């Protein structure tokens, strides 16, 4: 259900952990919004290659934009052998696989006996893995750690897991400012 409508990968896992942790609806929706804002960047970049397509096309195409489909579409478009229909097919195929694996996971989860603490830790391990994929320079690593420490500090004052959102906004702003400062030198 969530996979059909939201299709956001990490955004969905984050939401699940927040629902499990008793977060409020508004803080989950707000976090999802911030985490998925990067799709705006992807969507605007890909639009450059898709001039002249219909509104209906963009309506469907946009729903399929995630980190992975963006990366593949952009590299295919920039090498030339690619067109709007193939890009749309890729997005729909990726979304279809995502929904199917969610359903399989659901069934397997009901059948297999699992230690709930280990499952809980799976999420942490996955976050660590996804996090390291963004370690392409030292500043990003530092900003991530800053966000982590801030989140721990803020968790003392903010309820409903809002500390995640606030820590993210502050740390990202800091990263943006530091990078801007370096360029001005």
């Amino acid at each position: 259900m969530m996979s059909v409508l939201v299709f956001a990968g990490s955004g969905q896992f984050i939401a699940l952990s927040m629902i499990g942790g008793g977060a409020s609806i508004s803080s989950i929706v707000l976090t999802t919004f911030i985490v998925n804002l990067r799709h705006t960047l992807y969507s605007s970049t890909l639009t450059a290659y898709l001039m002249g397509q219909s509104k209906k096309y963009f309506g469907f195409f946009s729903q399929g934009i995630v980190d992975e489909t963006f990366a593949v579409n952009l590299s295919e478009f920039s090498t030339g052998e690619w067109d709007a229909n193939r890009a749309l097919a890729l997005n729909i195929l990726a979304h279809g696989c995502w929904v199917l694996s969610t359903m399989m996971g659901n069934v397997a989860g009901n059948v297999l006996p699992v230690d709930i603490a280990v499952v809980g830790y799976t999420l942490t391990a996955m976050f660590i893995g996804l996090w390291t994929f963004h370690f392409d320079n030292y500043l990003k690593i530092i900003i991530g750690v800053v966000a982590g420490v801030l989140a721990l500090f803020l968790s003392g004052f903010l309820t409903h897991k809002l500390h995640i959102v606030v820590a993210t906004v502050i740390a990202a702003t800091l990263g943006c400012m530091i990078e801007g400062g370096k360029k001005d030198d």
Partner: protein
Amino acid sequence: MTSVEVMYCILGMFVVSYIPRVVPPFLLAKRALSPMVERWLKYVPTSVFGALVFSEIFIDGNKLNLSLGNINLIASLIVLAVSLKTKSLGKSIVTGMVVFWLLKNVV
């Protein structure tokens, strides 16, 4: 959260994840995002994962657990090493599960 609330939550998530994707083709067709916003967005993923990872590791119920005996911490350091070395999400998660299970049940 009741299942009705979960439904509302999913609908809300749908709205906020669909709008940022679908608006650019209609609005900013030819204009690029401002460099400032683009630069800010670059730091969002690392920040959100940093905040989540630290919270998952160090917050236990309602209190902080900063001790070195925190099994979340030990397992996470191993997962971090595996992930940086292999760049594989699958291997990192499986390692994490095995190490966590061993720490919890054997050690």
